[in-house]
């Protein structure tokens, strides 16, 4: 057997042995070697941790787990087995040429080599010693005493001392693993040296390309396996026992050979006066173990033979054959000696050998594998590998695009909801339950809604008497004053307005039908709203709005609030004066709702307050019809005659989010701010942002509007704290389409409302966000502004 070539060179052999379930010392060495390599890599490249975890986990899942059955993890057996399998897998992953170079394999081979070497040496030594002791030239018999002393007593004492040392050590609870001077100083270096020699040899024999790789691993046979306690020195004891066994076998074989093939004479002598009886007794004592089988004369010499084999030197010196000893007596010791060596030399050695092999097996079987490095590995195997990085993404990765910017549209019917015409009416009904809810919620806070419910029950007339008159009165009074100085323009407009109102009233019914057909949404909504109590609400609103806005009102409660604002616009129209008388009652209804708003704002800037009043009367008639086909009527009125927009008046489109939170006292402020920003007064207000129907209405006002100075003026107020979305931009496009290419559209943004300020400035960051998008729309007549100037921010 050439140890310089690993058996694994012929592949398979080693791999097969790796299927073995039990650990061997060589396995431990390789295990430590791999652990060490991993640890070093981790220390040098901490980032390698992931790779290691991945490797170990997949080894565990693919190779180990299937083989391990359903043993629960974290048990010693599971740990042992997994680690052993892991080692096998690691080894099998090596190239076959490399396997022989692994320190474990080298160690195993070295161990075998040393064992063999020691066996041969022992055998030869045995032969040598025995033949030296048994040299018989025919003159002087072989000395039984020397033979016994050297080969039996000394050997036995050696074994006994080793055994007691062991026993003592055990009793004291495991003395430190060192000691064993002879072993440590002779056998261990021997094993180590031969292992590295073997490694070198094998590397030398290996293919050139793996030589470099292999060299890096040379000399890795470290004494780390001291970690494993007795396992570290047992491998050294065993060869020593082998040596002993071989030695004894050599002795016994030599003795037998010489006895068989040569004529040996054994004798004993002593200078002292020793009686043969003593010798006999000693002999019998020694022969105790086998005397039951091979008795006196066979297993050991009889007293007579003992006496007969005594050597008196003078006999031989004088060569007087007178007292010639009986050759039979001289030969009688032969079997005794062989048996003595067997029992006291060979047998203990065999026992020790067996014992140490057994001990090694037991220790290996009980290794807990719990030191920290093993723990880390074990944890790596058991921890599920967790990955959260996207793997490659989706196939069509490049299709992502920025937020789409709608193209300019010329017609106003692109909305998808509208496209599926047929379904329109039904769904819209149930469209936004929360809108209703919202309104109700708002009601308590804002007067408008609360007031609304009562009117419906008793049509418009009933309401005015209730509370309205008183409220109106004060308002009305101040209002007129501002009007006159304020604007000449409004005055002319007024008459016109007054006209439309009546018309609207008249037409309501027929129109409602048409509208229902034309714009499905509006009709639908009124119904749901109306049935419970809501119906009434729309009506009152419709009254004030009389014009286009009335449409909105039925749909959304939120709009109802808006109405007041509209009125100012209406109010602006002078007709108020003539109708005042009527107005008062009407106002009362409106006043309940909107009274508070208007007075402050309008008084200051707009004359409108009165005109509104004027309108109200017209509205009054509506309520009555309303119960029947309430909602529709107002809308139709709108198409018939648009709001009149004075040259300096604009249409205010308010996003519902803002509209929802505006308190009455905010509205004048809003108008103030607008005026400041654009120089426009608000002629009409509509809400947008809660569905196509609402948009439709808002645009309807715009389209039907009677614009005094042609390009329409529209202000859209949006919540700037929300980033722009396609929908907002699309609305702008629709607005543009409805208003005409040159209409002045101003988009004013407000920030996130706070308690103190419901129309706060927006953050510059949000503004730039909007700005980018608006720029992309490339609409030259669209202006983007912050409603509240930024510098106020600091003040606030």
């Amino acid at each position: 057997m050439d140890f310089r070539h690993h058996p694994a060179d012929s592949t398979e052999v080693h791999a097969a042995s790796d299927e073995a379930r039990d650990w061997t010392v060589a396995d431990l060495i390789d295990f430590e070697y791999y652990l060490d390599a991993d640890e070093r890599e981790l220390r040098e490249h901490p980032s390698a941790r992931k790779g290691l975890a991945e490797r170990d986990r997949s080894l565990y899942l693919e190779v180990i787990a299937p083989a391990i059955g359903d043993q629960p993890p974290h048990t010693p057996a599971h740990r042992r087995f997994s680690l052993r399998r892991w080692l096998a897998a690691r080894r099998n992953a090596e190239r076959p040429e490399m396997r022989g170079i692994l320190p474990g394999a080298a160690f195993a081979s070295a161990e075998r080599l040393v064992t063999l070497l020691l066996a041969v040496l022992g055998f030869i030594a045995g032969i040598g010693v025995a033949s030296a002791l048994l040299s018989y030239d025919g003159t002087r018999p072989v000395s039984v005493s020397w033979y016994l002393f050297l080969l039996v007593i000394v050997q036995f004492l050696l074994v006994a001392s080793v055994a007691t040392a062991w026993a003592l050590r055990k009793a004291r609870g495991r003395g430190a693993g060192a000691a064993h001077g002879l072993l440590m100083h002779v056998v261990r270096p021997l094993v180590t040296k031969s292992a590295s020699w073997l490694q070198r040899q094998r590397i030398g024999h290996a293919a050139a390309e793996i030589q470099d790789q292999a060299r890096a691993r040379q000399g890795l046979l470290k004494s780390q396996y001291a970690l494993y306690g007795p396992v570290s020195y047992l491998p050294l004891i065993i060869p020593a026992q082998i040596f002993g066994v071989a030695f004894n076998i050599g002795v016994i074989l030599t003795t037998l050979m010489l006895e068989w093939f040569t004529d040996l004479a054994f004798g004993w002598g002593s200078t002292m006066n020793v009686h043969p009886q003593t010798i006999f007794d000693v002999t019998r004592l020694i022969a105790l173990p086998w005397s039951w089988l091979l008795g006196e004369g066979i297993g050991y010499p009889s007293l007579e033979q003992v006496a007969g084999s005594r050597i008196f030197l003078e006999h031989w010196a004088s060569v007087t054959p007178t007292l010639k000893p009986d050759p039979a007596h001289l030969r009688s010791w032969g079997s005794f000696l062989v048996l003595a060596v067997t029992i006291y030399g060979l047998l203990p050695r065999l026992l020790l050998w067996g014992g140490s092999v057994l001990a090694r097996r037991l220790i290996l079987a009980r290794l807990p594998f719990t030191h920290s490095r093993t723990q880390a590995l074990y944890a790596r195997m058991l921890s599920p590998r967790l990955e959260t990085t996207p793997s490659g993404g989706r196939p069509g990765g490049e299709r992502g695009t920025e937020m789409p910017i709608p193209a300019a549209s010329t017609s106003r019917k692109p909305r998808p909801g509208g496209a599926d015409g047929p379904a329109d009416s039904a769904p819209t009904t149930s469209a936004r339950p929360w809108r209703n809810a919202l309104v109700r919620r708002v009601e308590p806070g804002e007067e408008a809604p609360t007031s609304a419910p009562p009117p419906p029950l008793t049509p418009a007339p009933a309401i005015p008497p209730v509370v309205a008159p008183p409220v109106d009165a004060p308002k009305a009074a101040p209002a007129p004053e501002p009007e006159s100085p304020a604007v000449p323009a409004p005055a002319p407009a007024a008459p016109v307005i007054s006209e439309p109102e009546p018309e609207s009233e008249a037409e309501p019914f027929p129109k409602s039908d048409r509208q229902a057909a034309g714009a499905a949404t509006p009709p639908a909504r009124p119904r749901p709203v109306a049935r419970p109590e809501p119906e009434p609400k729309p009506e009152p609103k419709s009254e004030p709005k009389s014009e286009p806005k009335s449409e909105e009102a039925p749909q959304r409660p939120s709009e109802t609030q808006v109405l007041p604002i509209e009125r100012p616009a209406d109010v602006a129209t002078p007709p108020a004066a003539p109708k005042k008388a009527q107005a008062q009652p009407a106002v009362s209804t409106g006043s309940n709702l909107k009274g508070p708003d208007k007075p402050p704002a309008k008084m200051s800037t707009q004359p409108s307050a009165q005109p509104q009043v004027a309108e109200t009367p017209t509205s009054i008639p509506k309520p009555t019809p309303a119960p029947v086909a309430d909602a529709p009527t107002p809308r139709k009125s709108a198409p018939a005659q648009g709001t009149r927009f004075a040259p300096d008046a604009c249409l205010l489109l308010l996003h519902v989010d803002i509209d929802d939170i505006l308190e009455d006292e905010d509205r004048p402020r809003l108008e103030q701010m607008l005026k400041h920003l654009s120089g426009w007064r608000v002629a009409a207000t509509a809400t947008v942002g809660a569905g196509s129907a609402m948009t439709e209405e808002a645009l309807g006002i715009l389209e039907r509007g009677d614009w005094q100075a042609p390009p329409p003026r529209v202000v859209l107020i949006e919540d700037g704290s929300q980033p722009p979305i396609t929908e907002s931009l699309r609305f702008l496009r629709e607005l543009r389409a409805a208003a005409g290419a040159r209409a002045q559209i101003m988009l004013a943004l407000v920030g996130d409302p706070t308690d103190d300020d419901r129309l706060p400035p927006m953050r510059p960051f949000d503004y730039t966000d909007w700005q980018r998008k608006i720029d992309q729309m490339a609409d030259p007549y669209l202006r983007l502004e912050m409603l509240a100037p930024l510098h106020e921010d600091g003040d606030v």
Partner: protein
Amino acid sequence: MSGKIPRLAIMGHPNAGKSSVVATLTENDLIQIDKRAGTTIESNVYPVIIDGRPVIEFIDTPGFQNPNAILEWFQAQSGKRELARAFVAAHRADPLFTHDCELLEPVAEGAAIILVVDGSKRIKEKDRVEIELLRLTARPRMAILNNLTNNTRYMTQWRDALCKAFNSVRDFNAHRATYGERVRLLQALKSIDQRWEPLVEEAIHAFEHDWNRRTDQAVTTILDLLKEALTYKASKTVKESKLVFESGRERVREEVMRAFEDGLRQLETKAQEQIRANFRHHVWHMPPDSILGKDLLSEDVNQALGLSKRQLALVGMAAGAASGATIDLSTAGHTFGAGALIGAATGGVLGFVGSKALAKLNIERASGTQRFTVGPVHNPRFPFVLLDRIVLYSARAMNWSHGRQAAEEDAPDKVPEKELRRAGFAEELPAAQQRDLARFFNAARKGKSEREEECRAIIRGILHGLAVSEIDSRADL
């Protein structure tokens, strides 16, 4: 197989924090997040892969661009069953609806919905529209109230609105989410659809496993740092001829001292890097006035961290050997270095920590040369300071949510980190543990290992407490 794993589409309008939530949930700070709206322009799938097998998929979607239109379309088509699918089919070609199709596509394919809303703002029309339209999709759904501020006034309102349409509603601050919070959110996923329980359970288990492993790793790093720092020495051998003048001697002394201090700093930096990698952070913003931004050996750090004087004295006495160091300290500067070869002379006291010497300078004279050596660290307070600081760093790393990269630290209503005492972690440990630490430090100084397991347990305890928010993370330090 992949059809059965839970797929969760994270939805909401632009800038609601969808990507932050995904980043935090999956601990992935490489997800692109920008405070500008519309950073996410297509649906990205972020799977949780356990052992190569996807277990959950989070889908980060772009924001709704046309919620009103979608809702109206849904309502118009209310007769249909698979509304989302029908919508995608009908609008795929429309460029205006690319994002909406993109985000509804996962839903059409059966993904459950996690709606992310900003709980600090009031409910807007858009939100209600989205809630409604998601309800109409009839998918299992859950809502996350991502509140990045301490403004809670709208939370109940949100809750009311969301509860009507969602199987479960949870608070979650994607910028502050600790490990514990993240796991709780994952737990909540189970409630969306019972059939997912095993897989979600597995994912949670894996996350926990992973987290424990990382904690252990961090503890090892910390212990290594302490051991290394406590045995660290810097030395320089100089020819006698260069030391003729006092100025030359002084210069060498300063050089060695600087080398020593820099060495300590580098050790700390190295450990910090390991910890940071360990907790998977690539992006990192440090508050400018953080203790961590200050020099390790500065007086500020020393003031803020470590043990109090009284504790230190008690610990020193109790730890026995430690008292040696304490006594040494009092005489530092007067004692001669023990290892001097020939007539050692102390070179004075260097680098004060807490007005006590950090380490001593030894000068060994040999034929023609002198060897200046500083270290190892001698000051009993220093290891506690170092420990506190690295634990603080770990706390930052553990609790710095991955979705936080775009957080506006100066946003006016950002949640103010909790108010807390300016005290280190070690200071709050029970005395017995402090003693254990002191013993460990003393042994480490001599290159020995004593009480290492106890200390490991102590540090692990601290880190664990931090992860589940039992121990305050001292975010303001």
